[in-house]
């Protein structure tokens, strides 16, 4: 079942085409990795799905419904039921860990009892139950990463968007959190679109990889298929 679909989507910034007639689909429950060097258009794809920007050409569908058309956001971001982990995490510094998780639940009108229940369950899952009342600034890098994940997941989104969420971490923590992301995905079964420029990170997390270069898709396939074609596409992606 298709959850996200791009139909001939193009996008330009200041006259430079950053996406060129992109077509792809994301199936329910898969972990699609967008892999490619900086500036290849990966983050633009996430921002288009999120609804922060509109395509210049083509259309985007989520759950079979057109959400963006050329130059027009049909469904605003707050109504797309998405989760997103930002590259800089974007944790609200004035709210506690619990407050960060609660904000979206309140906005969506959940009752106090339901909010508390969901938050407790999610904090338990990411191992941050005892940090509920801490502010983001009082947590380590890894803990902040988990808060960002929990904040996005607590809303049970249709699609989870992750924009290089582990790029600022050291190698050891990066590897540990990759495994946590996979474990969370397996237990919750959400659809995930994950942007990275790190080949190893991509191959470990993905169920499918989409390699991009200069605004175009150069290869889409399973991890095995992309690995096998590495010789032909390797100049395009960082090792």
């Amino acid at each position, binding site marked *: 079942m298709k959850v996200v679909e791009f139909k001939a989507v193009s996008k330009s910034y200041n006259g430079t085409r950053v996406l060129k007639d992109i077509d792809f689909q994301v199936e329910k429950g898969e972990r699609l990795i967008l892999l490619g060097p900086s500036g290849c258009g990966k983050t633009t794809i996430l921002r288009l799905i*999120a609804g*922060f920007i509109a395509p210049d050409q083509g259309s985007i569908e989520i759950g079979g419904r057109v959400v963006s058309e050329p130059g027009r956001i049909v469904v*605003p*971001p*707050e*109504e*797309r*039921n*998405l*989760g*997103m982990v*930002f*590259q*800089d995490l*974007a*944790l*609200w*510094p*004035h709210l506690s860990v619990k407050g960060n998780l609660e*904000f*979206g639940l309140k*906005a*969506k009108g959940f009752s106090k009892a339901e909010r508390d229940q969901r938050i407790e369950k999610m904090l338990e899952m990411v191992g941050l139950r005892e940090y509920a009342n801490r502010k983001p600034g009082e947590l380590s890098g890894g803990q902040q990463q988990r808060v960002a994940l929990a*904040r*996005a997941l607590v*809303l049970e989104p249709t699609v989870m*968007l992750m924009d290089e969420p582990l790029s600022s971490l050291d190698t050891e923590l990066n590897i540990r959190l990759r495994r946590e992301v996979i474990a969370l995905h397996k237990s919750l079964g959400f659809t995930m679109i994950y942007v990275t420029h790190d080949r190893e990170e991509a191959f470990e997390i993905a169920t499918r990889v989409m390699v991009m270069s200069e605004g175009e898709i150069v290869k889409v396939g399973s991890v095995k298929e992309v690995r096998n074609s590495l010789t032909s596409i390797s100049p395009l992606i960082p090792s």
Partner: protein
Amino acid sequence: MSKKAILSLTVLLLVVAGLLPVLSMLLKSMVVNCSFSLEAYKGVLTSSRQWKLMGNSLKLASLVTMLTVVAGVPTGLVLEKTDLPLRGLLIPFFVVPLLIPPYILAVSWADLLGRDGLLAHSFGYSPALTNLLFGLPGCVFVLFSIFLPIPILLTTAFLRTIDPGLEEAGRLVTGWWGVIRGITLPLIMPGILLSAMLVFLLSFGEFSVPTFLRYQVYPVESFTQFSAFYNFKAATASALPLALVTLLLLFGETFFLKKHTYQLRPSPHHQGSLRIELKGHKPWVFALITGLVAVLVVVPIVVLVLQSGGLQWYQEAMRRAGFSLVRSVIYAAIGATLLTVLGFLTGYIVQRRALSCWRYVDSLTLFLFALPSTVVGIGLVSLWNTPWTNLIYGTPVIIIMGYLAKYTALASRILVTQLAQVPLSLEEAAQIAGAKWPRRMLFIITPLSRKGLAVCWVVGYLFALRDTGITMLVYPPGLETLPVRIYTLMANGSPQLVAALCMIMISVTVLPMALWLIPQRKGLDEGCRV
């Protein structure tokens, strides 16, 4: 209400408070007996007196600008970049003259140097000294002391935006003098230019100091035509050249800034900028800077304290102007609150480019701020003085409208700077979480901007409190503010009474600022220790 609707209403309010009055004034001045006429303007353009006044105004504004920039930029550099002792404490002192009604400083210097001044009483009357004060040199000096904080503040603010790495890279190849000349000054040039433009326009539009010090300038003409003769068309025609000069300078500034603005944002990982060690120069630089503070700030205040005599004059001042004082504080508090809201929304439009017209919104606020008060005041009267709008014209609402028109630029600029420090991703994360725009503004952007909002309120309060130019033209009968009351009492009140009133005015301005600054400084020190 949607984001677009709220932001569009913000723009509409700005247009109604500021742009419509100016346009209405222009339109009315060009219509005689229901037909188009430029008769009023002919009088202005053909009168040699008007040209002479314009020449005086340009001369005064140019001299004040030159002096303030020449003194203010190095002072700003010293206060921000060197290891001068007490430099953090000196900046608020320099700012005091900017926060009180300009004519108060003129009164103080007249009390010191005038025919019946303190010096004349102690050492005998010196006509040369009095002649210097009452004329161009005196005007230049008083306006210099009032507007000096502008280049100082803008220099320090722009210096803080420079990535310390840029100067460090320069220090590897040259000394501090070379770095300042070749790197620092070119990078802060937009700030220096902005300060020069603001000082020029503010001195060009200032009329209370030149009037008091008997130097004839152009804005007085417009003010007199309106308030003394109630010749509305002549007043508008006289005001037009002021608006034209403002527009011309703003265009010039925009053109220059397009070419010379750099992306200056210090790296978040940086440990702070390098300080210039003054070493052996420290004593004389310290003496020079504190001497400047003493002459420009301390002396005028001490003179007013001495001139005001005993407690009985303060009691008399409160008896005669107590209600004006209360009104001033109430109007300023309301004005500051509305300015904070309007500035927040305007700042949001500009910083986030939330409406396609964001650039025009920014230019409009700056234009209205730079426009002489007489123009804004006459415009407000022109638009709202009708039988149907007495609810605005006959009440303090018109004063508040004047504050919004004139000072939104200040509020907006403060909050643009604040909003730039709130990453867009924090707002986007809230949006993804399902929060609509009002909720995002209320629970994410507002709490994260609280410091900027507090600064904005204090600045709005201080500027509304000191306002004389607009209030004097628009206040409804019996509802004058303290600065207006003092200005009118200057003509027939005793010097002691006027000095006491001036001291009360200074107190209500400076005390809240000091009360606000003390915890700020404490918090800053604690933050540094952490």
